[in-house]
């Protein structure tokens, strides 16, 4: 036991000390924060950047609609007092006015033009042409201004005052979804899907990163020939176990740091967003019960052991990183296959695909936690899937230990499948 502990300690400390680990652990949350803050910040930035005041409104409606649209676009310019110019044109002269405006835009005198005609009054269409055509925020602002003005105009035509019209059109429907589980109502549906995706992705990344880390560790022990000294003191099985547990603990440490930072970030998001002068987006923390948390941990640990043992066995079979790339492909394929189904399962977490993938040991460590956070998985299915995973883990670890024991001291040609069979039988 003391020796196992020594191996775990070495694997853990040597990895946690590396620059790579520190950078990834610290920058992971920073990246997450940046992903949240930068888009919000950019949205605000682009809103003020798209100067709509140099747009010209070609008003062919004969109703003064252009002036009202222009007024509601106040603020989308370089100064609060600037509004887009309005040219009132006769419907027959519209084509000519448009080609004139196009020329002006090309000469950079104008940034674009907005055409309002009879179809606009009818609530059917309006047109914008110009430099801001692909700016989503600018176009949304223009569309919003036209839509509201037309609506107000049509209300007025029905004899409703401008004041009343604004009041009537101001309402904006918000659609909210909420989950109900056995424990009661818990968090929003969309957010738990988002959370589930996050968890699945995190598991997938950890298994890939740290599984390959184990692979490289085993190859290092082989190529530097330090393996022989180590296995003359501990059994190869102990070395394998220590490696998997030590590296697994590194992955878990990193995840805990990440999750803790993300939770802290979301808890204090209002204050953090304030620093950047951005209103915090609405967000409800997903409720994860301790039981769910334990299940997530269990799936992660078993999934990690499953893949880590396979990666270690691959490492023992090969002699260089290049060879390892090739030999690890079957293992990687299983992982990638599991990852490919993350999205379809998110959309249909109760379907046949989702259920099947939750039973198979190579995909259940990723798919099951995902479903667990989105829906209520039946207990029988949950326990069954865990048992299948656990048994597969035992089998894989047993096989890997035998391959590892023989492979660790074998140099030269990579074994064929038949030779691998020999290794397993005679180890």
């Amino acid at each position: 036991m003391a020796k196992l502990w020594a191996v775990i300690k070495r694997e853990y400390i040597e990895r946690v000390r590396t620059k790579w680990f520190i950078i990834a652990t610290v920058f992971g949350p920073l990246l997450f924060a940046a992903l949240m803050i930068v888009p919000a910040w950019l949205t605000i930035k682009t809103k003020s950047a798209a100067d709509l005041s140099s747009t010209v409104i070609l008003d062919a409606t004969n109703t003064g609609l252009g002036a009202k649209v222009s007024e509601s676009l106040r603020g989308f310019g370089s100064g609060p007092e600037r509004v887009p110019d309005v040219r009132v044109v006769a419907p027959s002269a519209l084509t000519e006015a448009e080609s004139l405006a196009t020329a002006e835009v090309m000469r950079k005198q104008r940034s674009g033009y907005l055409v309002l005609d009879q179809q606009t009054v009818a609530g059917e269409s309006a047109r914008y042409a110009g430099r801001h055509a692909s700016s989503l925020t600018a176009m949304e602002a223009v569309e919003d201004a036209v839509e509201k003005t037309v609506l107000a105009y049509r209300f007025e035509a029905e004899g409703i005052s401008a004041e009343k019209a604004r009041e009537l059109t101001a309402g904006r429907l918000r659609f909210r979804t909420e989950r109900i589980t056995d424990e009661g109502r818990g968090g929003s549906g969309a957010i738990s899907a988002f959370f589930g995706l996050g968890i699945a992705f995190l598991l997938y990344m950890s298994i890939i990163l740290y599984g390959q880390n184990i692979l490289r560790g085993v190859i290092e022990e082989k190529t530097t020939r330090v393996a022989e000294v180590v296995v003359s003191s501990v059994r190869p099985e102990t070395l394998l176990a220590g490696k998997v547990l030590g590296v697994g603990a590194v992955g878990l440490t990193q995840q805990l740091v990440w999750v803790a930072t993300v939770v802290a970030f979301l808890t204090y998001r209002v204050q953090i967003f304030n620093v950047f002068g951005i209103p915090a987006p609405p967000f409800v923390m997903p409720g994860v019960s301790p039981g769910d948390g334990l299940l997530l941990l269990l799936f992660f640990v078993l999934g990690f052991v499953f893949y880590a043992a396979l990666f270690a066995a691959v490492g023992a079979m090969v002699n260089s990183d290049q060879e390892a790339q090739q030999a690890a492909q079957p293992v990687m394929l299983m992982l990638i296959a599991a990852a490919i189904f993350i999205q379809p399962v998110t959309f249909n977490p109760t379907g046949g695909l989702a259920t099947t993938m939750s039973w198979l040991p190579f995909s259940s460590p990723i798919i099951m936690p995902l479903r667990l956070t989105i829906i209520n998985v039946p207990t029988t299915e949950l326990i069954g899937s865990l048992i299948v995973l656990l048994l597969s883990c035992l089998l894989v670890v047993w096989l890997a230990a035998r391959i590892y024991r023989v492979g660790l001291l074998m140099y030269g040609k990579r074994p064929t499948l038949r030779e691998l069979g020999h290794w397993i039988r005679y180890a």
Partner: protein
Amino acid sequence: MPEPAVEIRNVVKRFAAHTAVRDLSLVVPRGTVYGLLGPNGAGKTTTIRMILNVIAPDSGTITILGQDSTSDSILDRVGYLPEERGLYRKMKVRSILRFLAELKGMSRRQADPLIDEWLERLSLKTPDKDWGAAKVDELSRGMQQKVQFIAALLHDPELVILDEPFSGLDPVNSQALQDTIVELRRRGKTVIFSTHLMDSAERMCDAVCIIANGDKVLDGALADVKAENAGRTVAVALDGAPSSEIDRIFADKSLVERVDDSNRFFEVELQPGADAQELLRAIVGSGARVKRFELVQPSLHQIFLERVGAKGVEPGISGHG
């Protein structure tokens, strides 16, 4: 009589294509320096790995210091320097030694002072520079070999097994290693080392075992081995030029197989079964004056060539003895 340091009984190890060790039995007495000799591919490393339970024999038993080699903590009392040597490249020297000591059941507190002692003894720690704080990467090859050597001896093992310890060592380190082996023996430890360098084995070993092609060719105390293989070569020196009578005696095929003639000094190889006394009588009878007549003790090198040469090295076998 304490139980032997190592006792191997009828051990067999087969790999897919060939038999690496064939029904090997040998006994290494305690407190001796024991040489495991043989050409490349003879099965030396396989034997050593089986002693250390790194690989399991297909059949047979191995006992170390009176206990089964697979029993749990017996390897804590054994130190091992493998032929292919290496260390974790990115680790600090002190941490790696501490780790390897922990694997031998030592606590950190026990190991740390010993590590410093050893680093100083092998001049890896001087007032100017402490290589213990350096990463393995930064060390020269010679220094790395010293670190590996410390790792094998740090836990003061009763049995030390060195696989081709002299290969790749410069003369200075080679001498240091030899001194250490002698010192270990003086302190009552048992040292087993494998080599194909017969002169270092001859200088240092109390007992040897020669294996070739997985078979034991001979084993026993060095003196016995030499005595058993002596008796066929006679060194003869005469006073004055040899007469034609002497030539006739040396040409007698019933007595002499071969003669190295250096005019006044002859190295005579007797026919198997021929008696050296008869040769002496014949020479004296010829009237020649004998200055020297000596049954030559063959060198280990000669014994090795004679006993193994015929069997040779199995063609196509490479890698680790």
